[in-house]
């Protein structure tokens, strides 16, 4: 497990958020708040805006209404540099080796973690010099997870983190989130699959579509 | 207008050309306006029974 040094503290408060995709309004007056060390599971059938919510929190999409307040940031810090987005597209270049991909994201995200150790955790250390194009979907997903470890940041926004992963992969995601929360990090995960997390009292659940 | 001297041809051509093109532009904008209004009217006529039930202001 990475050294449990405390992550910078962040608090997320979302108040009556509304988002639309094209003409369809996905959800409206959505609110929740997340203290350090907590996780939020976003449930709901496909097409109810789980991915849109994650991308809106990541600042990629401007919401139609409502506000997203993230406390704990210093002024000159650029919004978004204290969060990681794990999306369907993993940002991995096929012609670069596993190591080069990770080194690239470590440099771009100003990461301080050790690349070798991160690869160890996700179980890719053995094929570090293999071109990423040969990786399976599951291995590519693990490489994307390594990107989160190598540049420790307080807020994790995960969109279907366990997609393309086997049972062992699910356990890995659970362990990573647990240790992230233990360090005082925040995690918002959009998934319709169960997440293997240790203590469940750190988790809140938000269901989109229908009930909202 | 005296006979069509060398210059008059160009003046007439210029004014006619401009008149024709602006006329065409006006006509095309008005025509598309009318076409869209007609389609909207037809659609609203189709869904009127449901829409009124849902109480949505038209």
């Amino acid at each position, binding site marked *: 497990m990475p050294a449990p040094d405390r992550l910078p503290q962040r608090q997320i408060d979302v108040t009556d958020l509304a988002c639309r995709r094209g003409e369809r309004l996905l959800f409206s007056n959505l609110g929740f708040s997340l203290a350090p060390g907590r996780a939020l599971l976003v449930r709901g059938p496909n097409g109810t805006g789980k991915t849109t919510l994650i991308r809106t929190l990541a600042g990629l999409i401007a919401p139609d209404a409502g506000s997203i307040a993230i406390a704990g940031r210093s002024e000159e810090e650029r919004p978004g540099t204290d969060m990681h987005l794990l999306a369907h597209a993993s940002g991995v270049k096929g012609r670069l080796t596993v190591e080069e991909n990770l080194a690239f994201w470590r440099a771009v995200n100003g990461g301080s973690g050790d690349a070798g150790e991160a690869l160890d955790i996700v179980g890719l250390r053995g094929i570090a010099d293999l071109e990423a194009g040969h990786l399976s979907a599951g291995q590519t997903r693990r490489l994307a997870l390594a990107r989160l470890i190598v540049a420790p940041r307080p807020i994790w926004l995960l969109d279907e983190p366990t997609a393309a992963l086997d049972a062992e992969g699910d356990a890995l995601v659970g362990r990573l989130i647990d240790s992230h929360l233990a360090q005082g990090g925040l995690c918002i995960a959009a998934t319709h699959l169960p997440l293997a997390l240790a203590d469940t009292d750190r988790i809140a659940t938000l269901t989109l579509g229908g009930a909202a | 207008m005296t006979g069509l001297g060398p210059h008059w041809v*160009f003046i007439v051509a210029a004014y006619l050309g*401009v008149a024709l093109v602006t006329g065409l532009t006006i006509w095309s*904008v008005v025509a598309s306006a009318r076409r869209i209004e007609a389609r909207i009217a037809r659609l609203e006529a189709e869904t009127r029974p*449901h*829409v009124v039930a849902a109480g*949505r202001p038209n």
Partner: protein
Amino acid sequence: MSSVAEKPNWFSRLANPGQFLIWSRLVNRPLAVVTGLVFVAGLYYALLHSPADYQMGETVRIMYIHVPNAWLSQFVYGVMVVSALGSLVWRHPMADVSMKAAAPLGAVFTGLALYTGSLWGRPTWGTFWEWDGRMTSTLVLFFIYLGLIALWRAFDDQLRAGRIVAVFTLIGAINIPIVKFSVDWWHTLHQPASVFTPEGPHMPMSILMPLLIMTLAFTLLFTSLQLLSMQVEVRRRRLATMEKRRAYAAGTPN
């Protein structure tokens, strides 16, 4: 009817297109009448009441419809830049509607400026096309307008298209002055003697008057067409929403 009908769809959020439709429809008729009147006055002055120019003779009458179009080709781009800023900076929903409506009009007026310019140049330069500074800049502006229209049509989701076209409109705005300067520099390099065209205020009132009236007439024409095109665009998006909802309602009979 599915639950979607009750939920406020994005259209009601854009409240002001509704208001825009109301007031602009009121303006349509009177504006058209005023434009017609100003045109009648302008044409009367331009064709019948003003003298022939001492240097260019009767062909000065072509100037009365060339200059307004040349002025509009730049004025309309200005309108698009303001709308682009409105769309990007204030995210005003009507901004990209006005930008989309203005582009084809801009192209039409620029095309007319080229057409009348070449006819005006024919008696003086002897050819329909002369690579002089102003005409070439107008030609480049014409290509930029066509490029913007092509960009608009390349997108299927018109809502997302608005802000991307706005960015390119601003990129164009930064480059147009540079293009104008470089074309003028290029023109003086290859053809020092440029044709004297009575542009400045030193024109006698008898020629300036028709020019001003015709310019006003064409600007009014643009304004009325712009408003009408914006209404059409708003209604077109309303239609698209209705057709999408019909597909959605048909698709999921819940």
